């Protein structure tokens, strides 16, 4: 496997650098923002230097409605990393803006999560100084 994860690392902290910085700066302010092209308006995630539709380098950090639906779901019954206690669920959320993001759910047991479930973003301080965007069920 070529994906480089350090199993000895205490927690996979996102490096707030390069193209991704604006996303994580927003999260630390408890705002969910995504890259949006200032030329053609395309929402882009994960971030990248240019717009994959119109090739413009013009981009801004635009605030998301924070609402979406569960698009995919995994329940880890065995933990691949000491920072995460099994069982835990990872969700792929499709946002109203059309982009998808990987996250976790709060306030719900893994078995209760369903694909198609409407969700909204919440911010959780998972360890001191590290806030992550997570989701809770709505309705």
């Amino acid at each position, binding site marked *: 496997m*070529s994906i480089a994860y350090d199993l000895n690392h205490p927690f996979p902290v996102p490096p707030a650098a390069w193209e*991704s910085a604006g996303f994580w700066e927003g999260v630390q302010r408890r705002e969910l923002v995504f890259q949006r092209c200032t030329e053609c308006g395309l929402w882009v995630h994960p971030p990248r230097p240019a717009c994959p539709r119109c090739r413009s380098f013009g981009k801004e950090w635009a605030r998301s409605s924070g609402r979406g639906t569960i698009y*995919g779901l*995994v*329940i*880890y019954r065995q933990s*691949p*990393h000491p920072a995460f206690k099994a069982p835990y669920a*990872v969700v792929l959320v499709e946002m109203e803006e059309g982009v998808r993001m990987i996250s976790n759910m709060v306030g719900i047991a893994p078995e209760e999560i369903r694909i198609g479930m409407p969700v909204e973003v919440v911010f959780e301080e998972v360890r001191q100084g590290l806030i992550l965007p*997570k989701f809770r069920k709505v309705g």
Partner: protein
Amino acid sequence: MDMISNKTAIVGIGISEFSKDSGKTELRMASEVIREALDDAGLVPPDIDGIVVHTDDASDEIAAVRTMGMGNLTFFGQCRWDGAPCGMVMRAAIGVAAGMANYVLVYRAVNGSSKRRMGTPSRDIAQMSTSALLQWTFHAPFGQISAAGAVAMITSRYLYEYGIDPDKFGWIPVVCRGHGSKNPRGMYYGQPIAIEDYRRSPMFTDPLRLLDCHENSDAAAALIITTLERAKDLRQKPVRILAVAQSEVAETEEKNCFYSPRLSELPEIVRVGERLFAMSGLAPRHIRSIQLDDSYAPLVPMQLEALGFCAPGEGAAFCEGGDRIRMGGEIPLNTSGGSLGEGYLYGLNHIIEAVRLVRGTSPVQAGPLSPVLVTTGALGPASGLIVGDGL
């Protein structure tokens, strides 16, 4: 494409046994399978003037050349990503077709289980490639940190869209282990499983059960590619490359397609299939055996759909009961066992088995089967090939 299809051939193969601990260095394993492939082809080391290696392998072509007594390379380079094996054959075929080399060697040697001198990927964020960094940044903080997890995510969507009973995936490991149980060089020789074993298998990365997932192996394999013209003078009946293709599409990540328009579609395999059939002039109904990426069982029905062997959503039903995909069935799958029933070598073993089927020397085989289609890297970047005894 005209320079390659039916004009290039695989003329030598070598493959190690699959084990949990080879007790050997990867270079030693590489050297053994290279020698076996040379002997198989009736070539000697100085004949080899091209080598294609993998970025993750510890044994680069310099070490292989120094060990095996080759020494006049005019064509060499590396391929990347786990889905590379058929792409490595493609690179080799391009080399001989373009006249940049006469005999090109392709190999991988990986102590994936024992980790004995494995080509360990970068552990330092500062050294990550941009795409690995992306996964670290946006997936790992939420615990999405395994290849099984990526397949599980795609599978969850596939199950949801088509309303499939996940127990049906069990026929893939049952068939692959059944084939592998007859392969004395595999990890599961004499160890078939029944569908009840699958149903009792614990959930691992839900919706994947433990038996949906391959185990890591220590193994190595080598292939030699040349032009069909040169192949005719060698020891073996040439196994012709009828088509070979790679695919990487927008929003591809290694082993993920979380951001692609349809998560359940395996877009790279769709493209690989289109190119393979266009290049060979063949259609799914002409293919006599398939050696598909079965690193995780649900990838098989998804690929059957992506390649056009059945309609979208019908792959699991196609495999139900296992009769259509067993040796002797409509389209035998992974006849030496594949990743689930022989061992894990990223699919190089699938290519070796395709060559053996065309020759008529598979461990489970009664007579020759041709043509055979192979895929590697179903989650992308992907590659594939069709080999046979002619068009």
